[in-house]
């Protein structure tokens, strides 16, 4: 699963290098996210700027990534492309996550 991790002392950024998070990859995505979020900083940001398409299975996998986090950790989202943002809005899941326009808004040092 192409998840790329960038980390500062306080934030871990997980960049998804996949064009689609859909039914075909949802289960692997959820498992890879569990592994990627187990250790490290408590604040995690999922950078979705490379993801052009998400379906309900992919959305479910992102929600599951939040639910399976160890206590004290939080996950935010960044870089939603228009079609991905629309799925979050339609399902009201945009109210469940803090969403940053771009990952650099949040952690300029870590984004490089």
């Amino acid at each position, binding site marked *: 699963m192409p998840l790329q991790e960038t980390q500062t002392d306080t934030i871990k950024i997980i960049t998804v290098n996949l064009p689609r998070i859909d*039914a075909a990859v949802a289960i692997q995505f959820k498992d890879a996210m569990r592994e990627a979020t187990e250790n490290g900083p408590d604040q995690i940001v999922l950078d979705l700027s490379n993801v052009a398409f998400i379906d*309900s299975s992919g959305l479910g996998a992102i929600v599951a990534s939040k*639910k399976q986090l160890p206590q004290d950790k939080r996950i935010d989202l960044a870089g939603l492309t228009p*079609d991905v*943002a629309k799925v979050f809005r*339609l399902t009201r899941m945009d109210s469940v996550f803090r969403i940053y326009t771009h990952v650099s808004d949040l952690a300029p040092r870590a984004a490089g």
Partner: protein
Amino acid sequence: MSLIWRPVPLVKRRARRLDPPHTVVTSRPFPGFTLRFTGANSDVSPALQQAMSKLDTLGLAADWRSTVELVLAEALNNIAEHAYAGLTPGPVTLTARMTSERLHVILRDQGRALPGRKLPEGVPPKTDVACANLPEGGFGWFLIRDLTTALHYRRTDRENRLQLEFDLTNPPKSADS
């Protein structure tokens, strides 16, 4: 080299195979196409890509594209993951007809009927709940209902037939409306 005429042997036509999606392009009564593939998880995604590229060729507007792709993805996933769950994946037929005003897509499969032989309600997911209770699924029918102009389901002897309609004269529903 022998020039003796030999009759061409009659080749028995092979039974129609279901693997990889193949297309029958028709021009009547409206521009459209039919794709046939199996309801296996691994077949559904390439079939969706093929359907989208055919719709591009037919001139589906860019602002409608992602909406149609999402709805078809959800409907096809339902067939693969529910209708054919635990069964050998059988055939799926996707037929599309498009005019400048309307897109009709009909999906047919021979899997299990929808529960109660009717369309699920597709209620909006509950988001005002504790994190542990957030829904991880059940968005599919909500999105299908929300983003189509009309939706019809019919179960015949052994076939599910789902008809999805999109009114292309208006912009697709945005999340804010």
